[in-house]
């Protein structure tokens, strides 16, 4: 409660500071517009339907790309975590690829898939799938040996050991991989939409720049931040919190 109030006060203060700086006319309006102008542009965008349309398109893309990333990343991570051979070969490849910002895949994707949704989806998947895979593999590999020994003395082996012990014990790591994957998916999509002009939030942002409309640029940036934060707070944090508490990884509070 007091944490929420502190946060509210901080951001209110920030807004006031912003407004005051603008009123001092240190910079021309088109460099830093006032918060009110940005809010007006935001409302305009929402009412005119430009923003809702773009948001829907971007959300659909990220959901699709993220879904595919989960479908690939989770099983791949489960395999990598338990198979030494795969870990040493494919695992090293995945780790290496993670050093590459996913947007660098765009030229390749355009050559492979042309100017298509598939090309954008590919970039999103390349952004999300690696961290999902690696976290899942990590979680599986770090199953406490004590759990494995206990389960084995009780006669569990094969899939029961996997589904009953290894997988649930990896769940906290899998969840944080999913959370990381989501934020990577969202960022990759925005980067791709900015560069490769198409519909979506990224395009509205680019358009704002081309029209020299700073208020629009800022309002779209706010929307992008809001969507990223919302999914984090509404989906991943509560899930993570519950699992961590249940798994005894933190004092229940």
């Amino acid at each position, binding site marked *: 409660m007091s944490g929420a109030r502190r946060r509210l006060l901080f951001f209110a203060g920030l807004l006031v500071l912003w407004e005051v700086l603008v009123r001092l006319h240190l910079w021309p309006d088109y460099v830093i517009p006032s918060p009110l102008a940005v809010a007006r542009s935001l409302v305009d965008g929402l009412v005119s339907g430009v923003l809702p349309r773009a948001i829907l398109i971007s959300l659909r893309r990220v959901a699709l790309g993220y879904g595919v990333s989960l479908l690939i990343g989770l099983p791949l991570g489960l395999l990598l975590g338990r198979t030494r051979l795969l870990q040493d070969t494919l695992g090293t490849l995945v780790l290496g690829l993670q050093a590459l910002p996913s947007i660098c895949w765009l030229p390749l994707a355009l050559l492979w898939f042309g100017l298509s949704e598939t090309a954008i989806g590919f970039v999103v998947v390349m952004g999300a799938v690696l961290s999902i895979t690696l976290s899942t593999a990590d979680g599986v590999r770090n199953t406490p040996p*004590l759990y494995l020994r*206990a389960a084995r*003395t009780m006669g569990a082996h094969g899939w029961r050991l996997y589904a*009953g012990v290894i997988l*649930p014990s990896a769940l906290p790591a899998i969840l944080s991989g999913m959370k990381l994957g989501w934020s990577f998916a969202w960022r990759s999509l925005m980067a791709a939409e900015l560069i490769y002009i198409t519909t979506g939030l990224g395009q509205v942002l680019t358009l704002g720049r081309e029209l020299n409309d700073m208020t629009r640029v800022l309002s779209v940036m706010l929307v992008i931040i809001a969507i990223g934060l919302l999914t984090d707070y509404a989906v991943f944090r509560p899930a993570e919190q519950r699992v961590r508490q249940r798994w*005894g990884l933190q004092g229940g509070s």
Partner: protein
Amino acid sequence: MTPLSPSPVWKLELRGVSKTFRSSHGDYPALKGLDVSAAPGEFVCLLGPSGCGKTTALNIIAGLEQADKGDVLIDGRPVGGPGPDRGLIFQEAALFPWLNVRDNVAFGLAAQGVPHRERMRLADSHLEMVHLQEFAAASVHQLSGGMKQRVALARALALNPQVLLMDEPFAALDAQTREALHLELQSLWSATRKTIVFVTHNVREALVLGDRVLLLSARPGHVKREFRCELPRPRPMESHTLVDLAQTVMQDLRSEVLAAQQEARRERRSP
């Protein structure tokens, strides 16, 4: 005394068990010619300095590790891998936090293919044995250390093992809780008459619980001396006979601890 009977029928028998851990730093003998036997329903304590191979011995009996040499027999038959005829209890309770208390107790039963209804019934009746029936639906992080260890006990007993292996199960608990669990374990033992092999490095604990106490040597471990403890149960920790016996055992153990330390020092000097 059983001098005239032909070799007694042991429930559990270890004959000349040796185990050496091999690593890039060199070989590391943990057990050398360990002989342990336990009659049906007997309570045997293994006592020895830290690092003398007690856990290794239990792991070998449980089938989690293989001996390099020697035999492990249950009812005269050699054991293979892990199996439900041997239950193992660790220093930490090793309960699964994603399952509630009842499902933890039922976990091994599921692995044995016991149908759901029967599983729940067995889990509940074993929770009752350790007086935790009200906690059946609780999650693991709501339990105290002592309660966790009792759930672990219920979980092991639910599989109806022939031999119960306990690896310093109460070492992490405070003195009062430990004493309460000693009493609880003894009443469970008289009710179920399981054969128990109990590892500890607490002399008093060994004497309070065991019919026989086997004193292991410093690494590589083998049985150095054997003490019988035939005091009536339940045995109060302060009983004079027990305190006297503890004194004798303590002396022997101390010399083994010293030997273990010297061994460690020698190893550090010559890597």
